[in-house]
C-alpha cells in the first residue's frame, strides 16, 4: 500500500507538471500563437469576442499577466472547461468523447496482445536458446521493430489491404454501418481494427520479447530453477512458474517509458489508417492550429499514460510479493 501511495503522489506531481507544461508552451514560443490563429480564423474570432477572451486565457496575451493567468487556467482545467474547437465548431469535451474510446479500444487490444505474444515468445526463446523460436521469432520481431510505425502501416495498407484485399484499409467502421450497440456494428468495428492491431503487435512485441528473453536467460541460471528441476517438476512447470514468473518483473518496470513512446506509434497508425481516434484528431487539430483541441488532447494523452502506468503498478503489486510487504 505504501508503494502504491508513493506512486500515486508521483502521478499527481506528473499530472501537475503536464498541466503546467501545457500552460507554459504557448507562452514560451517565439512569436504569438494567437496571431497565427487570428490569421487562420480571423472571421470567426472577430465575430465572437467571447472566444477571443477565452483564447487569450489559454494561449497567453499581454492583457493578463502570468500570475493571474495560471490560476485561471488551473480552474478551467479542474472544471473540465477546455474551450471550443474552431475547425469543428464543437466543445472540445465532445470531440475528446468521440475520439478517445476508439483509441482506448485500439491500444487496449493491441498492447494486451503484443504483451502476451512478446513475453510468451521471449520466454520460449530464452528457454530453448538457439532453438527454433529463438532463431526465427527473435530476429523477425527485432527486425520488424526497426521499421517505423508509419512505414509499417503504409506497407500493411498497401500490400495486405489494397493489393490482397484481406482487410479494410481505412476508418473504424464502414460508411453504411448502423452505428450503435448492435452485433453487426461490433463485428464491423472489429474487422476494421484487425490491421491496425496487427501493426501495433508487430511494432511493439519485439520490445517485450527482448526484455523477457534477456532477463529470463539470467533467471534460468538461478539456484531456485536448478532446485525446481531437481525436485523433478515438469519442464513446462519450471519454465512458467519458476523462471518466467520471476523474469517478468523487470520488463514490467520498463513499461512507463515504453508506453509513453508507444502512444507516438498509436498516433502514426491512426493517421495512416484514418482511424478516428485521439491521434488522428490531434494531428488534424495541430495542422489546423486549433489550439484548444491540441492542448486538451496533449493533456488527455498524458493522463492516459499516467492511468496506464498506475494500472501497471497495481499489477506489479499483485505479481511481486516483496513490494507488498515493504
Amino acid at each position, binding site marked *: 500500500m505504501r508503494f502504491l501511495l508513493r506512486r500515486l503522489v508521483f502521478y499527481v506531481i506528473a499530472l501537475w507538471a503536464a498541466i503546467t507544461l501545457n500552460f507554459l*508552451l504557448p507562452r514560451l514560443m517565439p512569436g504569438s500563437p494567437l496571431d*497565427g490563429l487570428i490569421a487562420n480564423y480571423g472571421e470567426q474570432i472577430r465575430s465572437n469576442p467571447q472566444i477571443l477572451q477565452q483564447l487569450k486565457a489559454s494561449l497567453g496575451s499581454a492583457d493578463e499577466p502570468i500570475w493571474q493567468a495560471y490560476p485561471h487556467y488551473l480552474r478551467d482545467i479542474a472544471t473540465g472547461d477546455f474551450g471550443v474547437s474552431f475547425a469543428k465548431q464543437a466543445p472540445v469535451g465532445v470531440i475528446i468523447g468521440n475520439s478517445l474510446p476508439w483509441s482506448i479500444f485500439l491500444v487496449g487490444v493491441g498492447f494486451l496482445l503484443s504483451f502476451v505474444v512478446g513475453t510468451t515468445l521471449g520466454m520460449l526463446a530464452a528457454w530453448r536458446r538457439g532453438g527454433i523460436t529463438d532463431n526465427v521469432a527473435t530476429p523477425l520481431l527485432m527486425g520488424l521493430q526497426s*521499421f*517505423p510505425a*508509419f512505414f509499417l502501416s503504409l506497407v500493411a495498407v498497401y500490400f495486405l489491404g489494397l493489393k490482397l484485399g484481406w482487410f479494410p484499409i481505412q476508418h473504424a467502421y464502414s460508411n453504411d454501418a448502423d452505428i450503435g450497440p448492435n452485433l453487426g456494428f461490433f463485428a464491423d468495428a472489429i474487422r476494421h481494427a484487425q490491421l491496425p492491431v496487427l501493426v501495433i503487435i508487430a511494432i511493439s512485441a519485439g520490445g517485450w520479447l527482448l526484455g523477457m528473453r*534477456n532477463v529470463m536467460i539470467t533467471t534460468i541460471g538461478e539456484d531456485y530453477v536448478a532446485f525446481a528441476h531437481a525436485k523433478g517438476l515438469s519442464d513446462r512447470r519450471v519454465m512458467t512458474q519458476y523462471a518466467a514468473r520471476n523474469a517478468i518483473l523487470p520488463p514490467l518496470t520498463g513499461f512507463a517509458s515504453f508506453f509513453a513512446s508507444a*502512444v*507516438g506509434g498509436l498516433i502514426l497508425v491512426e493517421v495512416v489508417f484514418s482511424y478516428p481516434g485521439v491521434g488522428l484528431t490531434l494531428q488534424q487539430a495541430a495542422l489546423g492550429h486549433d*489550439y484548444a483541441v491540441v492542448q486538451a488532447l496533449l493533456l488527455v494523452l498524458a493522463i492516459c499514460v499516467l492511468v496506464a502506468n498506475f494500472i501497471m503498478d497495481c499489477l506489479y503489486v499483485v505479481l511481486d510479493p516483496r513490494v507488498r510487504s515493504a
Partner: protein
Amino acid sequence: MTIGAGDLTAGLEPVELQPLPDARAPRSRKRRRIPEPIRLLLANPKSCFGIVLLCVIVLAAIAAPLLTGHVANEPDALPRQSPSWEYPFGTTDQGYDIFAQVLYGARVSLGVALVASLIAMTIAITLGLLAAYSGGWVDDSIVLLTNVFLVIPILPLLIVISSFLQGTGPTSMALIIGLTSWAIETRILRGQALSLRNRDFILAAKVAGESTPRVVFGELMPNMLSRIAAGFAFVFVQAVFYEAALEFLGFGDANQVSWGTTLFWATNNSTLLTGEWWHFVFPGVAISLTILAIVFINYGIDELSDPRLRRLETRKRRRLLGMLWRPRAAT
C-alpha cells in the same frame, strides 16, 4: 565486519604482471591503430554488419551528386515512372526522381538526428552525472524531472510544439527533438554513475581537492564512455524516427527534401491508391535500414558487455558461420 580489499593484500608483495606473449603480435601491428572498442565491435558479426551498413548509408548521402545526375528538389524527370535503370527508385507524380530524393534527403534526416542526439546526450550526461555525484536534493529533483519527462508522451509533445511554432525547419526540429528526448538516457547514465561514485579513484580525486565539474567530467565521465556511446546510438535511432514521423505527419518544411517529406508527399498525393508503391517504399526502407544498422551495433555492444547474451556456439552453427565468416582463431 567485512574485510576490505586493502586488508587482504596488505601482507603481499606487489607482483609485477608480465604481459602475456601475444601469438598474433606480428599480424596485429597494423591493427593497433584502431581503438580497442571499435576493434571489438568489428570482430562481432552483428555490430560489424551494422557499422558497414551505416557507413554505406552515410557515404551514399555524402556522395549523392556522384551517384545520381538528377536533382532532388526540381521535377526534372518523367512523372509516375516505375523503377528502371534511368530512375532506380522510380519518380513521383510531380516528376521528382525518388533516388535523388532518398540520397539528398539522407543529408537532412541524418543531420537533424545527429544534432538532436548531440543535444539530448549533452543534457543527459550533465543531468545524469550531476545527479549521481551530488546526491541530496539535487539528485531528488533531477530524478523527479526525469521521471516526469518519461511519462509525458514525446511524439504528441513534439506535435504540439511544432503546431505552436508555426512551421519548423531542420534547425528548429533538431532543437525540439533534442530538448525532449534526453530523459531515458539521463536515468540510465545516473544509474551507472551511482555505481562508480564510491570507487577509490573518485574518492581520491575528491580528497585531492578537485572541483565538482572536474571530478564529474574529468574522472567520472571517461569511465562511462562505452555506455555513453551506446546511449548516443539509442537516442540517434529515436531522433531519426521522430524527425521522419514529424515530417510524415506534415509538421516539417514540406519543400525541404528529406526521407520524412518524401513519405509525406507519398501519402498526401494518395499515390497509395494509384499503385505507386515505390514512392513510399524506398524512403521508408532507407529509414528502416538506418535504424536497423544502429540496432545491430547496439546488439553487438550488449553482447560485448554481457557475455551471457552471446549465442551458444554449437558445432553446426560454427561450421555454418565458418563458410561465411572465418573466425580469426581458426586461420
